[in-house]
């Protein structure tokens, strides 16, 4: 196509980047926020107590809770508390016979009446967490691949499509970037188009392994949905067998026996697992057929040093404590996929590594943002001759403002909503999500009405103000504000407030630069300026 390989790759890079750039910004920003989803959830439920109890005590309280709440369930699944998440999540599956048909218009998954149930339990009290209803950081996590308001299946295909475009954009970007080593550290500021290009290049190259990894592994996480045909040709009759073989899973569970028996104390079972693993800690467990004589417990190892998302598990007879089986060794492809999935989720990351992942994600957002802005900057001179901005450029300008400056407004608004919406309102978490989209919609609308430089500045300043005031709103509405959290050393909550201030400062700086920016003079303009200066000097000499 066109002339030359590099040129056609440059063309492809421009269009794969531009066409999906705005949606990619949403995906990237929400995904980057997800690195701290637990911390965000904690900040959004300040009522949650901080201290963590011993894992075994927590497990015991979980069992007691489940015996009370879901005694008839086929299985109980419990995630034990960890440093990042002090509450316990538990899920249970009710037998088919228990499922009531949904009432008119009611959503299927209602607690207690549906097939599945879940609860978040405070290990200190053994009771369900009494905190405001919110999806917390999970909203961002789901947003970045399930989007919102559209069926999940459509969303995932759309996100996968964008991810594929992004992968092509990354590869073509590297091919096109001729001076990738020479310009490795090059960022020439205050030079208009040159600066935008330098910024785009450096932000892309400095985190290039990250960008390539996160995009490819993102597609890998949903690859069973995108490419199911491999499974169906290799396993024409028993697709379930694929999943057991591919994920080194334990075998399926038998039906419950008629007889009842009391299971061993959970601490004993967890200790057996720890002994078997020579010290590695327990992340959670699933108890099948609680109360039955053939109750079985699968104990999962905690995510730790290994990159892979698949952690080993052990199966015990819950009544006798006998070890029944261990998860089989994983094959090469299973391990590869596990590591790729693990790299994407970064569950293994400690606080330092997590911060670096977060930083890399932010750099990715800057890369995409500078890319879409760069296109507009490059395109604008072509419209200068006619004096009127064409339809395409106007559209891109509006979308740029609405996405690059509008999305931060939406993110900040979400946190404002969490603090300001009435605690007892119905469908509160849905309302919080709606706040995000109302804010984003307003920003997009404003951008479409007036896609000019001042709109950039106003939206950036608005985003800055919204972010910087979050700690203030926090102080006015809760007892978990900086005055308290800094003193008590609660770095999760304090860190959140401080990060909000930092984002506010960054956005304010960007707004200032946008406001103060002077367009570069054309050659004729420079002549006029020089002539005016000369006249001024002449006038001064004459002593006018």
């Amino acid at each position, binding site marked *: 196509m066109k002339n030359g390989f590099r040129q056609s790759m440059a063309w492809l890079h421009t269009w794969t980047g531009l066409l999906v750039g705005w949606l990619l910004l949403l995906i990237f920003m929400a995904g980057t926020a997800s690195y701290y989803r637990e911390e965000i959830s904690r900040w959004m439920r300040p009522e949650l107590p901080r201290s963590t109890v011993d894992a075994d005590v927590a497990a015991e309280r979980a069992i007691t809770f489940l015996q009370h709440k879901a005694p008839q369930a086929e299985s109980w699944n419990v995630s034990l508390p960890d440093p990042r998440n002090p509450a316990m999540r538990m899920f249970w599956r009710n037998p088919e016979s228990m499922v009531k048909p949904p009432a008119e218009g009611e959503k299927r998954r209602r607690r207690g009446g549906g097939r599945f149930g879940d609860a978040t339990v405070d290990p200190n009290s053994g009771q369900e967490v009494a905190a405001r209803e919110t999806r917390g950081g999970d909203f961002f996590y789901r947003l970045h691949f399930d989007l919102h308001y559209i069926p999940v299946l459509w969303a995932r295909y759309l996100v996968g499509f964008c991810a594929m475009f992004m992968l092509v954009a990354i590869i073509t970007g590297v091919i096109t970037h001729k001076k990738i080593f020479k310009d490795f550290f090059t960022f020439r500021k205050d030079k208009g188009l040159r600066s935008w290009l330098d910024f785009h290049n450096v932000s892309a190259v*400095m985190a290039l392994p*990250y960008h390539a990894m996160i995009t490819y592994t993102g597609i890998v996480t949903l690859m069973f949905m995108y490419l199911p045909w491999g499974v169906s040709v290799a396993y024409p009759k028993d697709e379930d067998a694929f999943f057991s073989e591919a994920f080194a899973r334990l075998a399926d569970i038998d039906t419950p026996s008629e007889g009842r028996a009391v299971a061993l104390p959970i601490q004993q079972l967890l200790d057996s697992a720890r002994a078997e693993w020579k010290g590695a800690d327990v992340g959670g467990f699933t108890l099948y057929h609680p109360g039955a004589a053939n109750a079985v417990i699968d104990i999962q190892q905690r995510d730790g040093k290994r990159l892979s998302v698949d952690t080993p598990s052990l199966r015990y007879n819950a009544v006798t404590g006998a070890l029944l089986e261990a998860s089989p060794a994983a094959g090469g492809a299973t391990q590869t996929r596990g590591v790729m999935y693990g790299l994407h989720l970064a569950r293994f990351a400690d606080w330092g590594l997590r911060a670096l992942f977060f930083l890399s994600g932010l750099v990715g957002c800057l890369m995409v943002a500078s890319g879409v802005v760069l296109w507009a900057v490059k395109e604008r001179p072509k419209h200068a001759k006619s004096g009127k901005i064409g339809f395409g450029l106007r559209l891109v300008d509006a979308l740029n403002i609405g996405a690059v400056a509008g999305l931060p407004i939406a993110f900040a608004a979400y946190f404002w909503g969490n603090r300001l919406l009435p605690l007892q309102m119905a469908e509160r978490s849905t309302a919080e999500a709606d706040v995000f989209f109302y804010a984003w919609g307003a920003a997009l609308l404003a951008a479409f009405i007036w896609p000019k430089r001042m709109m950039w500045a106003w939206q950036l300043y608005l985003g800055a103000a919204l972010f910087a005031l979050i700690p203030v709103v926090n102080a006015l509405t809760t007892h978990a504000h900086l005055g308290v959290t800094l003193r008590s050393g609660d770095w999760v909550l304090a860190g959140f407030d401080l990060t909000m201030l930092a984002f506010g400062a960054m956005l304010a700086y960007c707004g200032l630069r946008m406001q103060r920016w002077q367009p570069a003079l054309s050659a004729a303009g420079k002549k006029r300026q020089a002539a005016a200066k000369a006249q001024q000097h002449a006038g001064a000499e004459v002593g006018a």
Partner: protein
Amino acid sequence: MMLLAITVSFSAFTALSLAMDRHQADLHGKAAATPTRRRAWRWLGWALLALSFGLCVVDHGWAAGPVLWLGALTISGILIAFGLYPFRPRWIAPLAWALPALGLAVTLFAR
């Protein structure tokens, strides 16, 4: 040790940038260093990169270690390219000496 790894990679990148004409010009006016000098910077830079890789693996193992190393490179590179060369080029050389010293001090005292 993570801080030491990050600061060493900062110095590594400083050295590698000094091996380039453009950044020599940024710091010292027209390409101040001879080709021999620049080659020395290049060797030093790569050696420091290898050192920082080693530190990451020692600290986080062979699985998370390389991941950490790439993250260290990202933060160092961003700091140098977006923060220092455009705004405070005079700070680069002193920081390249001071930061690893700081990292070493933190590592030794944290033990």
